[in-house]
């Protein structure tokens, strides 16, 4: 399968933050959800793809082109949606169109206004006065109007009401019907990822914790609950984010490790949200126990 986006061993450090050997790829024709707690490195990774941030080592290929040396060629074919508007806020849609047009070889005015109409956006109102959902749709309209083959969205759903989020999913589902395109979107609203994404990458503390098909993730992990004394010896080391409280314990477990556990332990499918929480707990636990040893 041909990859529309490929990141290999991306490293970057500044201050006390670092991206460590971040590698993942997105095949053409699919949607990837990009998740992880605040400060996990999602935005830095996205900024690196867009050549807005320099990285120390590694390689990023978009449409098979190098993200640094071929950045202009890449941007002709790339659409971006950020959580805040990058366009001039004092202009209206018509003025914005005139302003952006010269930047793209393949700009299609008709297509732009068709999207604007489809998204119910007013053409004579200052875009600075648009609601968050309207701004998001405007940025998508821009991406669609220069025939972007890859759309990268950074937190597009944060601060959006449920109706606008649903509209976004609609737009993305329609966009990806063309199998030559791709979508990478970072979000905290993992329910959106669970519904529409084909692939998911989880970033944690600057490292890739998981990357692959969403099915593999959701079938690969479960939340285990029960009484601590029912846990067979040795299994505790395999648990992620183990947390004991007065009436029992909770932890994340690989479904492969479920075999042979006593019936007194209950397990259920883990959502992406739960996985993120247990990964974070595991971290605290490690830090805590290390502190204890010292």
């Amino acid at each position, binding site marked *: 399968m041909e990859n529309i986006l490929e990141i290999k061993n991306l490293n970057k450090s500044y201050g006390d933050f670092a991206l460590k050997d971040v590698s993942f790829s997105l095949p053409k024709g699919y949607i990837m959800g990009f998740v992880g707690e605040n400060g996990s490195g999602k935005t830095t990774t996205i900024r690196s793809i867009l050549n807005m941030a320099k990285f120390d080592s590694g390689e990023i290929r978009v449409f098979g082109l190098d993200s640094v040396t071929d950045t202009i060629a890449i941007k002709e074919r790339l659409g971006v949606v950020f959580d805040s508007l990058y366009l001039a806020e004092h202009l209206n849609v018509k003025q914005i169109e005139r302003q952006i047009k010269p930047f793209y070889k393949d700009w299609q005015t008709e297509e732009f206004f068709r999207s604007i109409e489809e998204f119910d956006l007013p053409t004579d109102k200052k875009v600075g006065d648009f609601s968050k959902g309207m701004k998001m749709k405007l940025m998508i309209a821009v991406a669609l109007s220069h025939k972007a083959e890859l759309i990268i969205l950074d937190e597009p759903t944060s601060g959006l009401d449920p109706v606008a989020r649903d509209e976004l999913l609609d737009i993305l589902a329609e966009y*990806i*019907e063309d199998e030559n395109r791709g979508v990478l979107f970072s979000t905290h609203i993992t329910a959106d990822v669970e519904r*529409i994404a084909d*692939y998911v990458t989880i970033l944690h503390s600057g490292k890739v914790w998981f990357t692959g098909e969403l*099915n593999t993730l959701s079938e690969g992990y479960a939340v285990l609950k029960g009484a601590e004394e029912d846990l067979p010896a040795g299994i505790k080391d395999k648990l992620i984010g183990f947390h004991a409280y007065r009436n029992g314990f909770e932890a994340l477990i690989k479904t492969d490790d479920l075999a042979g556990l006593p019936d007194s332990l209950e397990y259920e499918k883990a959502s992406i949200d739960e996985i993120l929480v247990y990964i974070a707990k595991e971290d605290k636990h490690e830090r805590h126990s290390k502190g204890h040893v010292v």
Partner: protein
Amino acid sequence: MKIIIKNKSELPIYEQIEQQMKAQILDGTIAEEEQLPSIRQLARDLKISVITTTRVYNDLANEGFIISVAGKGYFVAPRNNELLRERMLCEMETALEQAVRSGRDAGLSDDEIIAALRSFMEGS
């Protein structure tokens, strides 16, 4: 074809769709040899991932409910299809077994159960 996805269901989305499509193929709501939406159309219509709809079509094709025609897309398998027929027979046997068990549990004699089946067949 009518598909309803419940987000709060215990069943994964692909299984929900498979069950509903199988039911509609078996009861004829989706006619035999009818063309199905493409994998990508279905994903778009249901607002779900392409990998999920790919899995649905692959599973249904493996079980003989639908067939893939190169360059044309997916179609409901013809009714004389051996695999599908086998499956329908199997469904019938399971349902009959259940009916007999329920009848006996209710204290009916074998003749009464057969009579009930006959009147049911005449009725439908």
